[in-house]
């Protein structure tokens, strides 16, 4: 069973359709990136999954049930949305104790999650004095209170410094290693390419594609770029071996869907001079831009 299942989710605000017949699944035990350009409907979708925004149509299930029907949801799913929902006059610890209370989560758990997100030393400081990065960590601490199996995070890297981003990546990976599931929306595509196993890409409220990073990036584009003074000769030789190769504008040979070992053996067999050989792959960012641009042209 998928940890999160979205079926035909639609949301219209007046005449504006923010999310349009969106369907996707988030498999258990994975980090799934939720991507889309600004205004694509990511936050609205996450808020519909969490019962904060009423869908115009469709449904979203978390652990097999609508979020609002979960009994004590803090133990099933933790969510960290934008880092603004704090009373500035309360301390970090009291903010969490207020969240813990309705679910009968003991105070020692509050101290544990503050420790987990590295905010123990700021526990008794008022949230109004916190930086954006500290608020992000506090928001995450709130999501962790019930030690849930599923985390839903909206732009959790906003305000985090590089060390914080690295910490978050390690933290989320550790949770997934323990069987947890994470759905995370982020603009940091390079970061998601490292940590996420799968992605869901939406644009203008519609699904563009869903799949593993490997499916989207790995199989769609890898190549070997060779800088050589004998580019034409190398290209002909590679072509004769059934390898797709072409000359780039810079006079380099670009061989597609081939390993550096294959190219190296071909070069050695022909006795050619090579200055540089680089294996390259399309990044998630390339794929994202290409897919969302393709959608734009189609629409």
């Amino acid at each position, binding site marked *: 069973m998928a940890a999160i299942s979205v079926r035909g989710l639609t949301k219209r605000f007046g005449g504006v359709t923010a999310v349009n017949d969106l369907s996707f699944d988030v498999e258990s035990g994975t980090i799934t990136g939720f991507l889309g350009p600004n205004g694509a409907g990511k936050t*609205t979708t996450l*808020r519909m999954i*969490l*019962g*904060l*925004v*009423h869908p115009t149509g469709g449904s979203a299930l978390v652990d097999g049930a609508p*979020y*609002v029907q*979960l009994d004590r*949801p*803090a133990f099933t799913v933790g*969510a960290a*949305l*934008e880092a*603004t*929902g*704090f*009373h*500035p*006059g*309360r*301390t970090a610890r*009291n903010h969490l*104790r*207020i*969240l813990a*209370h*309705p*679910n*009968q989560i003991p105070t020692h758990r509050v101290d544990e999650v503050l420790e987990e997100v590295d905010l123990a030393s700021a526990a008794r400081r008022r949230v109004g004095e916190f930086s954006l990065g500290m608020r992000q960590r506090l*928001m995450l601490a*709130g999501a962790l209170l019930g030690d849930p199996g599923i985390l839903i995070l909206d732009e959790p890297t906003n305000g985090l410094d590089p060390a914080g981003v690295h910490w978050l990546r390690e933290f989320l990976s550790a949770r997934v290693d323990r069987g947890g599931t994470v759905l995370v929306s982020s603009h940091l595509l390079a970061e998601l390419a490292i940590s996420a196993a799968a992605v869901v890409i939406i644009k203008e409220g519609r699904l563009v594609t869903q799949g593993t990073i490997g499916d989207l990036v790995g199989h769609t584009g890898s190549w070997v770029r060779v800088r050589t003074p004998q580019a034409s000769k190398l290209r002909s030789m590679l072509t004769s071996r059934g390898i797709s190769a072409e000359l780039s504008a810079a006079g380099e040979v670009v061989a597609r869907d081939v390993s550096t070992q294959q190219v190296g053996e071909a070069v050695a067999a022909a006795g050619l001079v090579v200055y540089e050989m680089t294996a390259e792959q399309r990044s998630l960012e390339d794929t994202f831009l290409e897919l969302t641009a393709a959608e734009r042209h189609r629409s």
Partner: protein
Amino acid sequence: MTALVRSELLKLYWTRATWFFIAGAVLLAAVRVELVLASVGKVGSPLRDSPELRLTVLGVSGSGSLVVALLAVVLVTREFHYATWTSTLLITPSRRRVLLAKFVAAGVLGAASGAVLFVVAAVLGLISGDVTLGIDARLVQLLIAGVVAAAFWAWLCAALAALIRNQTIALFVPPVLMIAVGALLPAYRLDSIVPWTPDGAVAALAGAEFAGSLPVWAALAVLITYGLAASLAGLQRVQRSDVC
């Protein structure tokens, strides 16, 4: 539900503004009581040791309920003002239960404050030496009426705040309901409506007698009707709205 109510009370307890509001309520009540005591013996004022003076002193202590009602408004609207509504609903997705807990917490806050204000007025009266406070049925009625009235105002204003949601606008509700309506209706010769207003029903609850004043049970029914109607309207608004 108990845990939810306790959580709402903790929100109040752990916010500095709460204590400023309560201090303001006590101060307002104390000033009003002192003004009454200062007028003792003057023309048109109650006499020393008279039942009227006792009624007036204990009655004006209720003016502090205005500040407590403002706090009840803030108890609800600050969730929207600071966007904490999102984290509240993530922990407890049932908006009905959360709002119900807020109304109960507002009522508890009002009742406790009403009792404190009553005690403050009684102590100031006793210290002045002008007021005699024999414990009798009338005193008990005044105490109960003071506590119920303060609880009612806090509940009603919290419910209307849920309906309005905008903190700035909602903060006008207590002064309008508790002061302006009672003053304006007679001015527009609408005295017959006064007994049916919240202010009129609260006065009747305390045993005040005026043209058309309701019996205590009817006054209580009127207050409960107002509270329920405002609560249902607030609940409808909150249930339907998207938390964006």
